[in-house]
């Protein structure tokens, strides 16, 4: 007997079946396309943005993230369940297409069949098991959502509808298969039946019914299964099912970097409004993002503000913007999202790094901040306004006299470029290392390390101004550009070739943000610079073993993917790192990013305290970091969390300078 089955068995294959079937299918697809096109008008409310450049890269990202589920799998548990369900369901979809292709086209028109013999056996067992995998994964996701109920996972009508339709489609599929097999294979074709193991079990369960009952059951369920699928297609635009298309498309439209770069605003054009106050002030991609969100809450779980009882959830921001775009396009975004939420963001990028839908949260928050600052002159507090005024007058947010910016380097082997521009590197010191006593120690250590490695270091001294990073992240693009332009002109004037910073915020700003303003010098963070000197044998260290834990700063880690170099330096100094639970791309912000370094933390608990407790939990006694903001926050956080004596915060440079050989 040939290994195959009669397609449309018990249903019939005449015009009375095919015409209504295809009619319903095309109507459903028509509705889907129409709703999709209608949705385009929602996205079109936004400003233009080119996200169709670099097509090869985009298509690759799309394939990788849809077919391989790469971003979904960044989180194991539910990620694996989603991926397996997706692969299972996709195979079933593909199988259905093959059936229709043969029965309604190739065989119908040309008498050509392919679903028989070994190909049919493989087809049969693959689909049979794919269905099982899909059901088990869906069940797992159901248990997680409705019984385990992870904190923050909100279930709406959408979720119930989606679980219901998918379960019903999968289960009716098996009963249909079982009923058919009970009649056609169980009695005399067991050799083929074993190629549908789940169907076989189902067939045996149903075998007690008489053939005519089975035939009725089969026919009824076949049509039910069909209409469930029609319902599924129609539900796509109106439920989270839309993520099948929107999230996939979002992989294509994803931000291809540089990571974390903000849009450099045109401050001199004839724009009448700056930043985002209404949905029209955002780009179409910002609105599209809101449609790609599946409310998986991965962003919220990792948000340092959310985790310290502040009124910010990146997921909620996206959802609120989506509601405005779809329902109340005239609404004020800032009122909708709330100023406290907007100001709470540390721009740490934990949300974007983990988002399985490639949504860009931070830029939207900064756009709203820009509107508050540039159009209303509003800040999260008076202390921030004062810092802005200080930066404007003295070039630093701390309110220190600008002329004393280079005083820290008195007596150190450092030249001011104004006196001597013949140097190997320009050390862009930054505000904290210039003025803050604690961080001057780091700057001094870095200079000593350079000296030991035979590197001639120059600084700008009083000619250097704040790089503008905290100012920019707080929305003050105007002041940022004015500071940046001055720095760029000053640096360019000296003809230096390479800039090194000890601050990840300065580094990220000079290396990426300044590009848009015409700065093109090579910029390195000192950990990368020193690591190279160490490997080249120019920086000689004697290892002196110690235990520590290491904090990946947001702007060296997530923003620049520099995880290895600083660890290599710690190891070169004899350090053994006991990693915190949240490290590398999952690192938890110190609380100072997003300009929060110059703002008081008035809401919720201290982020720095939370991080200090995580560090203390490793039991290593030393918290090593690579950023002046982190160091400042940890000095406070450790005191605030009563961990003094248990944990000492140190910068890598401070540790290395104690281990200089010779």
């Amino acid at each position, binding site marked *: 007997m040939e290994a195959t089955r009669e397609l449309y068995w018990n249903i019939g294959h005449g015009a009375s079946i095919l015409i209504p079937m295809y009619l319903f299918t095309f109507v459903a697809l028509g509705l889907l396309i129409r709703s999709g096109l209608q949705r385009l008008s929602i996205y079109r409310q936004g400003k233009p943005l080119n996200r169709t450049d670099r097509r090869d890269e985009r298509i690759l990202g799309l394939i990788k993230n849809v077919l391989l589920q790469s971003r979904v799998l960044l989180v194991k548990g539910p990620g694996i369940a989603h991926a397996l369900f997706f692969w299972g369901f996709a195979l079933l979809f593909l199988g259905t297409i093959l059936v229709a292709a043969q029965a309604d086209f190739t065989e119908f028109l040309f008498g050509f069949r392919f679903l028989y013999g070994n190909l049919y056996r493989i087809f049969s067992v693959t689909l049979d098991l794919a269905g099982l995998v899909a059901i088990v994964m869906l069940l797992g996701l159901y248990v997680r959502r409705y019984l385990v109920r992870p904190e923050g996972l909100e279930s709406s009508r959408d979720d119930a509808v989606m679980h219901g339709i998918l379960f019903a489609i999968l289960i009716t599929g098996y009963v249909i298969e079982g009923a058919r097999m009970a009649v056609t294979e169980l009695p005399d074709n067991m050799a083929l039946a074993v190629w549908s193991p789940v169907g076989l079990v189902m067939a045996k369960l149903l075998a007690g019914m008489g053939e005519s009952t089975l035939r009725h059951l089969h026919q009824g369920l076949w049509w039910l299964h069909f209409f469930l699928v029609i319902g599924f297609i129609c539900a796509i635009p109106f439920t989270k099912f839309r993520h099948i298309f929107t999230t996939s498309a979002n992989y294509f439209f994803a931000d291809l970097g540089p990571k974390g770069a903000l849009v450099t605003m045109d401050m001199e054009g004839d724009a009448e409004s700056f930043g985002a106050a209404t949905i029209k002030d955002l780009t179409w991609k910002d609105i599209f993002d809101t449609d790609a969100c599946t409310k998986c809450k991965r962003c919220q779980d990792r948000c340092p503000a959310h985790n310290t009882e502040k009124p910010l959830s990146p997921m909620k921001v996206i959802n609120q913007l989506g509601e405005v775009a779809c329902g109340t396009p005239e609404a004020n975004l800032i009122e909708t999202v709330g100023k406290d939420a907007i100001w709470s963001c540390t721009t740490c990028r934990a949300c974007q790094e983990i988002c399985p839908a490639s949504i860009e949260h931070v830029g939207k928050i900064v756009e709203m901040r820009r509107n508050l600052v540039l159009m209303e002159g509003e800040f999260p507090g008076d202390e921030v306004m004062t810092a802005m005024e200080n930066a404007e007058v003295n070039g630093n947010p701390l309110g220190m006299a600008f002329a004393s910016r280079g005083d820290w380097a008195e007596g150190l082997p450092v030249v001011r470029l104004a006196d001597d521009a013949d140097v190997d590197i320009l050390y862009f010191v930054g505000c904290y290392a210039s003025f803050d006593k604690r961080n001057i120690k780091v700057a001094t250590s870095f200079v000593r390390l350079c000296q030991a490695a035979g590197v001639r270091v120059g600084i700008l001294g009083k000619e250097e101004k704040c790089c503008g990073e905290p100012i920019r992240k707080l929305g003050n693009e*105007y002041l940022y550009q004015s500071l940046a332009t001055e720095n760029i002109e000053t640096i360019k004037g000296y003809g230096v070739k390479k800039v090194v910073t000890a601050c990840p915020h300065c580094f990220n700003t000079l290396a990426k943000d300044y590009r848009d303003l015409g700065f093109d010098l090579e910029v390195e963070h000192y950990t990368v610079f020193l690591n190279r000197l160490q490997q080249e044998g120019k920086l000689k260290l004697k290892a002196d073993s110690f235990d520590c834990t290491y904090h990946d700063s947001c702007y060296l880690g997530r923003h620049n993917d520099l995880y290895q170099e600083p660890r290599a330096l710690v190891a070169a100094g004899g350090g053994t790192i006991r990693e915190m639970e949240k490290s590398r791309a999952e690192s938890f912000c110190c609380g100072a990013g997003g300009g929060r370094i110059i703002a008081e933390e008035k809401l919720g608990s201290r982020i720095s305290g939370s991080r200090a407790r995580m560090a203390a939990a490793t039991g290593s006694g030393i918290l090593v970091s690579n950023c002046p903001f982190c160091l400042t926050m940890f000095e406070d956080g450790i005191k605030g969390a009563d961990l003094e004596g248990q944990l000492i915060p140190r910068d890598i440079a401070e540790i290395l300078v104690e281990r200089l050989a010779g």
Partner: protein
Amino acid sequence: MLVVACIKQVPDTTQVQIDPVTNTLIREGIPFIMNPYDTHALEEALRLKDRYGCRVAVLSMGPPNAEMTLRKALSVGVDRVILLSDRCFGGADTLATSNVLAAAIHKLAQEEEVPLVICGKQTIDGDTAQVGPGIATRLGYTQLTLVDKIVDLDLVAGKIRVSRKLEGRHEIVESPLPSLLTVVREMNRPRYPTVPIRLAAEVAPVELWNNEVLQLDLQSVGLKGSPTWVKKIFSPERDKGEIIGDGIGDPAGTVNLLVEKLLGKDLLEL
């Protein structure tokens, strides 16, 4: 209706050092700022504009480079800025300064009613607190000094009631308009300039009034009109601080040490 705020460009004295040889301020590397008290005067004028729709003019007497600071006033949204600058105004003491400012306000008042003039209580470089009262006297305005709040303003009835911040107490004073207010820091929090106004300010005009415009008697302005002059500026000698005792380990003993020290210096009586 026009509200006038008077401002002065001053060196940021928090950063100023005095040259021990010449006894003059070292200006090198010191940024110029708007006198901090004046920023509150300007802000209060802007709040009156927001509330009553009156216009705001800002006056400053100073050298030509004071235009920079007047531009800052433009960037927060004032309607008119006037720099009172002339070689013959130079070297002025508080009397001569108030002569010039009063003359300018008088001139403005001929075009438009000026019910209120607002000044900072004093400047951080001169610290005299005399210019505001000087202007009021010359204009015949009631003078309300050390104001930390306008309690009530009735422009129709021409009445103002303000709170004055005195040492350890507040005084509520009512006066007929026109008045001149000198304000303290507690008055308000000056606003941060928005970008659209800032951009407009970049191209807005700063009017220049010299003595051809004001037509003041040369004996009443500048060095010639100034009966006072600075003889010497110096930083007082100060003993270096020290840490005594062990405040955490032995608080009682440390207090005893402190009391003995203060008694020894005759700063405390038992």
